[in-house]
């Protein structure tokens, strides 16, 4: 939408990485939530040169709005290439909103094991939480009107950008 400037996703990413830098160690597991969160997690993983491979979580099977919205066409397999048990984990999502995605991600995560602790990183926090969930690392905040949403895009060169969408009501 013209006239509604969105922050630059790459700048948000840089800010997020700098916040996360002191908090990660060699064994920290990054877990990106499909699809945007995985992109962000990959970039953070690269920038911080982490040894533990980044994981990807698709929470489709754990969502609470599944009965109303159905199954997405492009469900991915969750890939967690490390042991969750007793590990420090950081969940990474692109846009933090109601918190329901994070709830679903936590439920799925705990089916894999009992992590030592789980922190939350989001590229953008747009407020509007419906659950008691708060991020530890945020690239930036964004105020949106009701009916608006924001989505992360990745171009062919791997550059991230934000896109504003008007929800059809």
């Amino acid at each position: 939408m013209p006239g509604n400037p969105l922050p630059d996703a790459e700048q948000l990413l840089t800010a997020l990485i700098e916040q996360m830098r002191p908090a990660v160690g060699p064994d920290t597991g990054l877990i990106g939530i499909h699809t945007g969160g995985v992109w962000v997690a990959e970039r953070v993983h690269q920038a911080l040169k982490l040894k533990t491979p980044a994981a990807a979580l698709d929470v489709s099977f754990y969502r609470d709005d599944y009965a109303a919205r159905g199954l997405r066409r492009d469900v991915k397999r969750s890939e967690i290439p490390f042991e969750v048990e007793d590990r420090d984990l950081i969940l990474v999502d692109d846009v933090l909103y109601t918190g329901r995605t994070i709830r679903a991600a936590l439920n799925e995560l705990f089916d894999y094991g009992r992590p030592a602790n789980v922190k939350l990183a989001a590229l953008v926090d747009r407020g509007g939480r419906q659950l008691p969930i708060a991020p530890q690392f945020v690239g930036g905040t964004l105020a949106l009107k009701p009916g608006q949403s924001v989505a992360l895009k990745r171009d062919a060169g791997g550059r991230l950008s934000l896109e504003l969408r008007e929800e059809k009501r």
Partner: protein
Amino acid sequence: MWLNPSNPQLDKKGRLHHLLTLEGLPAEILWQILDTAKTFVGTKVKKVPLLRGMSVFNVFFEPSTRTRTTFEIAAKRLSADVINLNVTVSSQSKGESLLDTVDNLSAMHADMFVVRHGESGAPHFIARHVAPDIHVINAGDGRHSHPTQGLLDMFTIRHYKKDFSNLRVAIVGDVLHSRVARSQIHAFATLGCPEIRVIGPKTLLPAHVESLGVHVYHDMRQGLKDVDVVTMLRLQNERMQGALLPSAQEFYKYYGLTQDKLAAAKPDAIVLHPGPMNRGVEIDSSVADGKQSVILPQVTFGIAIRMAVMSIMAGNK
């Protein structure tokens, strides 16, 4: 009728509501099921909460072990409550009509019926009479259709062969009585498989089977020449009426899959069988247990396929 009149398996938006047959099911939905099933294979998490609070009724008017069990496992891995009913040994023997049985089960708040019946079309009949929010999955009806078996066969073939667009496939044996063969033929055609062969004696091939777009062979070695996929069908003794075959031994001699006959196929051809196998009738043990056999992976993939079908349907409200 609120269901799609041109295809009663689909709702008004063209999404899967019942799974009754693969005939006429859009390719898009087939691929959706195959892709979704992939996400359930090889994951560490055994159980997901997708169907929590839903009741799945396995209603079997005909005996089955494998299909019923894999449906049960699939539903349980999706966190549904599963109720198994072998109707052969209960109501029907007391004379209850099919519709009364279904009405009674609906009154027990079923969300999904998995139906196997000896009569072709029974699941379709049930689907037309249940409440609109109930889903019906055909787990095999007469000689008509066994869609989840056809889907798991496609999943297995895709797993090993990656692509259908250059495959030569053969379906061998008792095609006449086989709902598996019919389901496979429709699925192969929809997924773009260029050459489908059926091989069997004239008495065990349906009249005008060519009209389904298949090539007919009566000689096993000719039919298997250079194929990529061989599906052996079970010789359905219980469905045989009249003298369709001289003997099981003679059938084995001409149509039983031995290493020798399999050598006519491509060296990397895979062998499928929907089970249960009659060893020494349609398939030799050395082939059934051999390195080209994918018969046990079929069973494992069957769970993923059934999970996929149930989770897609349950989400189509």
